């Protein structure tokens, strides 16, 4: 402490302040009332930490490197700013995956720079195995998070529609992971400067991220993105140990712990364990899902509109189809129209509706739907029996009654919205295909269910027309 220069003191103090801003910011983000201010607090922390880091090069400026740093921040920041501003609200989940992957990639890059230099030097001036080990581990996690997040992005973006699965994929993944770790441990010996071995380590780590994410179906992607978010946090924390940077250790660990808890909350909402998300091929075995009796019965928008206009109570169940069609504004218009006619309208949101928990809430909030009309699964599930019409818009698995009735179904046990208990159910769907999980939905075949085919935006527009006319 006493031999600390003023520059060092200034850097460390600013990091300290930045970390406090991060923690306060995250804390504020966990309450709807203060959430908007929270991200601004954290943002100032980031600005301060970034600016003060330039002081590291104060006494010994290498202008080539400093120029490269400024250029890198400019290029990366500008691209991210532009894409982040431009992206539609419905595509937020994959953007989070993408930016998270970039963070993981950065952690991997730091590890690569460290490892190409050789084993890091410890406090006693000797090469430190502990720090070297953390550099290897952080590099591995960062690289896996990088390629894994990119696959998650590609899947949600619709670039990869079919999960790639093959026999004993788990064993192959395990073997790859062990091989990567073994090479990583070799790097701690005298192999550290061997450029081929370091490169092989990172290539293998990237492959592990791809093969690990590939078999996971799109329905489980939110959990996977959250997991990679936590892993990136952990990788950043490990890099913090390597670079003796307290801000990175604390911010990374806080995100690692918070992200792990968030991942568990999401997996729990889907009634899946994290292990089953990662290691079991979902939807392969039980696509049949038991006997289906009855048929899908279509309905004209005009009939559906009349049915809703003269109902006492209507519950809207939005799903991913609403997000794809950008129908949230139209749906709110319809709800307002019905409310003017004296119909009690509520929105029922399943915890994992859409591609992420809270995804539907964000969309409805964007359209201007007030909070007091939006209900969680627990709050509203008992009300379906007393409801005249349930309008399901682009939701599928979250209203599939087999989750309650068929123990052989892969989604058996998942809490669902009991839309099938309502007097009438209108399901808006693009076509006759199956849901994201690939499971037949028995709700569509019930006697009290009618299918309203078509793009959600167009279908709801026709409903509005019909309600106005009635």
């Amino acid at each position, binding site marked *: 402490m006493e031999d600390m220069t003023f520059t060092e003191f200034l850097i460390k103090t600013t990091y300290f302040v930045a970390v406090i801003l991060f923690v306060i910011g995250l804390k504020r983000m966990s309450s709807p009332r203060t959430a908007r201010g929270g991200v601004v607090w954290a943002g100032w922390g980031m600005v301060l930490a970034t600016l003060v880091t330039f002081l590291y090069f104060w006494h010994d400026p290498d202008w080539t490197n400093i120029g490269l740093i400024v250029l890198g921040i400019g290029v990366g920041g500008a691209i991210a700013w532009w894409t*982040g501003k431009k992206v539609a609200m419905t595509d*937020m989940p994959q953007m989070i995956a993408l*930016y998270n992957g970039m963070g993981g990639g950065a952690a991997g890059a730091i590890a690569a720079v460290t490892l190409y230099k050789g084993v*890091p030097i410890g406090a006693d001036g000797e090469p430190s195995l502990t720090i070297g080990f953390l550099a290897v581990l952080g590099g591995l996690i960062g690289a896996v998070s990088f390629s894994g997040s990119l696959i998650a992005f590609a899947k949600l973006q619709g670039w990869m529609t079919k999960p790639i699965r093959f026999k004993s994929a788990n064993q192959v993944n395990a073997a790859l992971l062990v091989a990567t770790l073994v090479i990583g441990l070799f790097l701690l010996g005298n192999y550290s400067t061997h450029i081929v071995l370091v490169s092989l380590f990172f290539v293998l780590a990237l492959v592990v991220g791809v093969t690990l994410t590939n078999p996971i179906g799109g329905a489980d992607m939110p959990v996977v993105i959250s997991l990679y978010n936590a892993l990136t946090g952990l990788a950043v924390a490990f890099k913090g140990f390597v670079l003796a940077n307290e801000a990175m250790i604390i911010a990374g660990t806080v995100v690692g712990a918070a992200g792990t808890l968030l991942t568990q909350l999401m997996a729990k909402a889907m009634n899946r364990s994290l292990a089953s998300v990662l290691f079991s091929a979902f939807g392969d075995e039980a696509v049949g899902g038991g006997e289906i009796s009855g048929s899908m019965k279509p309905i004209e928008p005009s009939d559906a509109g009349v049915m809703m206009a003269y109902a006492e109570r209507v519950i809207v169940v939005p799903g991913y189809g609403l997000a794809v069609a950008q129908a949230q504004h139209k749906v709110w218009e319809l709800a307002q129209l019905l409310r003017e006619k004296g119909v009690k309208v509520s929105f029922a949101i399943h915890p994992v509706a859409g591609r992420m928990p*809270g995804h539907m809430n964000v969309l409805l909030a964007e359209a201007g739907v007030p909070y007091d009309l939006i209900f969680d699964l627990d709050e509203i599930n008992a009300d379906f029996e007393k409801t005249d019409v349930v309008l399901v818009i682009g939701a599928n698995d979250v209203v599939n009654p087999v989750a309650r009735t068929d123990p052989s179904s892969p989604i058996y046990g998942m809490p669902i919205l009991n839309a099938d208990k309502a007097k009438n159910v209108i399901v808006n769907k693009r076509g006759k295909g199956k849901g994201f999980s690939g499971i037949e939905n028995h709700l569509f075949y019930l006697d009290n269910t009618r299918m309203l085919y078509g793009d959600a935006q167009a279908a709801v527009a026709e409903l509005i027309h019909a309600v106005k006319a009635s």
Partner: protein
Amino acid sequence: MVIEPLDFFIAIYIFMLAAFTGYEIIAKVPVILHTPLMSGSNFVHGIVLVGAMVALGFAESSVGRVIGFLGVVLAAGNAVGGYVVTERMLEMFKASGERK
């Protein structure tokens, strides 16, 4: 400037306390904030930018410079992108009275 390594046990204590802090922050979050909060925490690990800057700043070889530069670009993308999407999402969370 030489980067002084941390004392091992102090580092472990920092790690433990920060983990508890992260856990506590999330423990009582309502479902509607799950996505924005994931996005917000995604922004916070953008602090990796600081590490990427240091790694590039002290890089001596051209391989180190190339990888370090890549790291800074990616880290800046993480931080800036994470902030922009979080802010856009939270911008919609207005109480009924604040609506236009």
